[in-house]
């Protein structure tokens, strides 16, 4: 035990052992913009989830005599749409679908793309070539074009929108996952783990996922706003969510002609898309700097 005697380290103030995520959270909480956006997004999500319990009007209940009432009309704080439905209620319920269609594909793509990327990045060689060349093919389409192409092929509908957007976002996530994995794969601690006799799956699980998921996650969050705008765009084109569901893009579309009668009400869904995607973007930026991941 003699070695220990001269190596007992007189340490400067002991840094409290904190997990990586605690640090991220701490840095994040110091960013007022990101926190504000997080709160807004959270509110949107909460209001979407709990919409039925908010005591709102039925978002489907139309009234022909109360069509296109302006903002502030008694009983309809945000006015009514072209069928006399309560805009407030529809916007909140609309957030439900919009966020659903905007976020779910990214979540799905996150899992699927990460899986592809991890396998490709870890395995290398032929498997990598097979996966990544396929990804390249999908990459050869501008994302908007690909989403529209697939959606129009599948036809309108929520499920189809989810499918097409998921397909659109798998390749970029897979790419990021692949390169993150490949760079982690090249680090010595992976070799050390292999030298300890760890199998591929164990190493991926213990040593790789934890280190690549962060960057992939940050990247994925930066896609959420793109996805939401795109999803709403599909509905706007008439190949996304079907009426009469309240969905911001679709509402924007159906309210387009009302813009001459009541421009403010007609602008609301677009404004909601804008605000939400702005918050998602800022949130993602905040998260990125909190996690200190480079572009």
């Amino acid at each position, binding site marked *: 035990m003699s070695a220990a005697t001269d190596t007992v380290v007189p340490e400067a103030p002991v840094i409290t052992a904190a997990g990586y995520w605690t640090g991220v959270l701490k840095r994040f909480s110091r960013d007022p913009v990101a926190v504000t956006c997080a709160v807004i997004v959270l509110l949107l999500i909460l209001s979407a989830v709990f919409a039925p319990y908010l005591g709102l009007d039925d978002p489907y209940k139309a009234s022909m005599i109360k069509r296109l009432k302006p903002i502030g009309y008694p009983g309809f704080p945000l006015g009514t749409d072209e069928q006399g439905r309560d805009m407030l209620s529809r916007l909140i319920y609309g957030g439900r679908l919009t966020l659903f269609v905007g976020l779910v594909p990214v979540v799905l793509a996150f899992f699927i793309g990460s899986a592809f990327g991890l396998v490709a990045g870890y395995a290398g060689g032929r498997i990598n070539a097979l996966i990544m*060349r*396929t990804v*390249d*093919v*999908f990459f*050869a*389409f*501008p*994302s*908007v*074009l690909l989403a*529209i*192409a*697939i959606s*129009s*092929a*599948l*036809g309108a509908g929520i499920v189809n929108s989810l499918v097409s957007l998921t397909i659109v976002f798998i390749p970029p996530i897979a790419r990021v996952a692949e390169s993150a994995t490949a760079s982690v794969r090249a680090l010595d601690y992976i070799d050390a783990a292999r030298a300890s006799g760890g199998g591929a799956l164990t190493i991926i699980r213990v040593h790789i996922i934890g280190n690549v998921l962060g960057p992939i996650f940050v990247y994925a969050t930066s896609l959420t*706003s*793109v996805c939401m*705008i795109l999803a*709403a*765009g599909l509905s*706007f*084109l*008439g*190949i996304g969510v079907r009426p009469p569901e309240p969905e911001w*893009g679709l509402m*924007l579309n159906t309210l*387009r002609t009302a*813009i*001459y009668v009541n*421009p403010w009400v007609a*602008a609301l*869904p*677009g404004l909601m*898309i*804008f605000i939400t*995607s*702005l918050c*998602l*973007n*800022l949130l993602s*930026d905040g998260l990125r700097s909190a996690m200190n991941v480079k*572009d």
Partner: protein
Amino acid sequence: MFTYLVRRLIYVLPVAIGVSIICFLLVHIAPGDPLTAIMPVDATAEEQAAMRSAYGLDKPLPVQYAIWIGKAAMGDLGKSIATGRPVADEVFAAVRNSLLLAFSASVIAFPIGLFLGFLAGYFRDTIFDRLVTAIAITGVSVPNYWLGIVLVIIFSVQLGWLPSMGAGPGGSGEWTWDYAHVRHLILPAVTLAVVPIGIVARTVRALVGDIFSMDFVQALYAKGLRHSDVLRHVVRNAAPTALSVMGLQLGYLLGGSILIETVFNWPGSGFLLSNAIFQRDLPLLQGTILILSLFFVGMNLIVDVAQAAIDPRIKRS
């Protein structure tokens, strides 16, 4: 350089084939009959069958693909079901208009994006940086189809300054560079420019910021170079990446303008595409997507090669 070019070209081939397969399959996974749109609603079953075989839709898929791709390679993308005109003519005419729009949007977006991004990267972590970042994030967050509508309301309907739709007075098809035509270009181009302004500004900001934090910048100052000289070095370092970002954005503009073209009735590829979708015009849909994505592939290729050509760091052999 030459071998690099050839290798890059050879690499593009399988991608292009993959793209064509996807284009081809896309329209075949769709439910419903592609001929629906053009047949009179009360056409009989025989009439439908006759029409189907006239369009070659009764053959097995691989055969259809082989025929389609074979002809496509010769520049024949078939005939539009809806209009009977050659798809290639339709698509190229439309792509020309889209290119016009995309280039105009680039001409607006790139200088602004570059300028803002460079300044923000230079004045990193200052108020100015925050401002630019805010502009950039707004740019990428705004749903541009909505912005287009808003701009139409303001500038066409309310103020009456600019036309709301079309590519020329009276829907003129021949583009000329006169005021009457350029007026039509302004609103869609500005709308389309918003996103790339954001993206270019953000990328360039990060790029310039990174370059400024690199060791060699210190070394440049240590050499006694003036500020302007150092800026020249930074620009030269940022140029390849910035160019490639802009090249990609141009590709995206071309392929991604469908929503804007719909809003502004701009007779471009996106507008054509949305018509093709609406009418389920199979050959037209296939052709448009194929041409657009191949254009995008080509754009990527050009960007890569150009980047390799101007960036000495990329090994060219």
